[in-house]
């Protein structure tokens, strides 16, 4: 596609009047003053509709009996490009492999979503969530309990067969 250039026709200085230009400008602002096109979102009251593929802080899915779905396979700390996941696996009393320690440093995290993509049991998810204010920095290291407590909706994965999907 060729680049088109729009040539602006500007009046000669002798033909311009500052006051008239200023008055037409004021007419424009007055139109907006009395009939504003409101784009501001009243945030805490009005919540944003997050994109279905928005990637925010993590949450861990749990089984019906309250156990984490994670089987401590170690793929997420392996794939994590920011190296923000710490995982120590172990065995619970029913002989299931589970994470004894599962920590995500949300400050190091770059929210690429690869942990969710790689998870074989759909346990760890990035969430459609962004309200992360805390009073101390160490609160941003989410441990397993914290991750399991999260209730925000999870992110939809990108479907390679439908690359333009939302």
């Amino acid at each position, binding site marked *: 596609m060729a680049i088109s250039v729009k040539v602006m026709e500007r009046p000669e200085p002798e033909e*311009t009047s500052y006051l008239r230009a200023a008055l037409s*400008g004021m007419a424009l602002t007055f139109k907006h*003053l009395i009939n504003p096109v409101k784009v501001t979102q009243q945030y805490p009251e009005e919540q944003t509709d997050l994109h279905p593929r928005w990637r925010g802080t993590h949450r861990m899915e749990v089984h019906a009996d309250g156990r984490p779905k994670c089987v401590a396979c170690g793929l997420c700390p392996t794939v994590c490009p920011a190296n923000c996941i710490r995982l120590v696996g172990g065995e619970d009393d029913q002989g299931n492999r589970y994470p004894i320690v599962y920590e995500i440093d949300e400050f190091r995290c770059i929210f690429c979503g690869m942990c969710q993509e790689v998870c074989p049991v759909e346990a760890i998810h990035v969430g459609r969530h962004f309200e992360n204010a805390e009073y101390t920095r160490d609160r941003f290291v989410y441990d397993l309990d914290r991750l399991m407590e999260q209730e925000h909706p999870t992110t939809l994965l990108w479907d390679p067969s439908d690359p333009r999907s939302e």
Partner: protein
Amino acid sequence: MEPISGVPAIVAMVAKVLGLFTILMLVVAYATLAERRISAWIQDRSGPNRVGPFGLLQPIADGIKNFLKEETLPATANRLFFVLAPMITITPALVVFAVIPVAAPLATPWGVVDMIVADVPIGILYVLALSSLGVYGLVLGGWASNNKYAFLGGLRASAQMVSYEVALGLSLIPVLMLVGNVTLTEMVWQQQQMGIWFALPLSLAFILFLISAFAESNRLPFDMPEAESELVTGYHTEYSSMKFSQYMIAEFGHMVTASALMATLFLGGWDLPGTWDNAFWHEGQLIRGFAEDGSVLMADAAWWKTLVTFGAFGVKTLFFLLVYIWVRWTLPRFRYDQVMALGWKVMLPTGLGYAMLMAVTILSLDTVGMTYGFTYGLVLTGVSGLATLAFLFFIDRGHTIAGAAALNRQRAHAARHARGDNPAGDGQVVLPSAVGD
């Protein structure tokens, strides 16, 4: 009815001072909120709406914040002037209000109270004198901060205000000629007598005064002294907390005062259409006007008339405040040379010419024996309208403000013209900087 006197007069005076000061400060406070909300609406935003209903407590929150903030005092600043400067700035902005009549006289059981704090005989001269004092606060603050940006801001403030005071004074001359007096009460009375507010018979003076008032109160597009894109925040760069707040109060106080002044000089002050509310002290009597035979018609002061006229005055003042804010969020800041060019090369000659035109017109009308009144005003309106049209279509065209690109083109035109004048081609190179203005 008799004017109030004795102890009740002193009580009334104190009440007026306190009341007006309170109202003025409230208006100033809410003008800051209005500025933020109106700017937001103009820009399709919402503005501050969190503190209180519709953000109405925002000015109070700002005030508390400013009181609690840290007072900074630069180590190299001149302590005395640094502290003094904000006070010098804030005082003239507030005291000017003393000579502005805000409503029709109020009838009380102890006599009639003039709704003006001080009806001094020098009126408008007092206004001019005090408002020109405000610049000292800015220059002093800028200098005492020992900061180059603040200093430059102070310098700009002084140069700009000196320049525009000339235009301001010249635009007042037609008003004074028409009124024949300098007190503001007389000006309101004369507008009541004419039946037309001076904005129409003296339309060009009104435009010049409006522009000069913007420049005098350092509002956009004339806020060169605190141009934040060039000078951080200009003269108050080093100020914080309440000292900064004082500068802000002074700026908004100046706006309110200038608005009230414009309302009084050109929109009839507290006057409303019709003669029912007219009131003036004529030879010790409160009169409403003169009958056909020259006898006086007595005015009938009433508390509701005072209230309604005070409302009218308030609406007019607030209208000008709105214009201040509206202009600020519409027009970009001038370049400094444009400010100076506008002041000296457009406003000054226009003001002079218009003063002469009005003088000739008034003299001619008096000579042909036309009485002061509605017809008199219509004639003046016609003459002034022609002058205003001429100003808009000829003087303003290409002279008032021209952008840098337009100026370059003008220079190129001039250079071509200069070459045409030198067909011999004697090798003289005409540099762009050597031509033009």
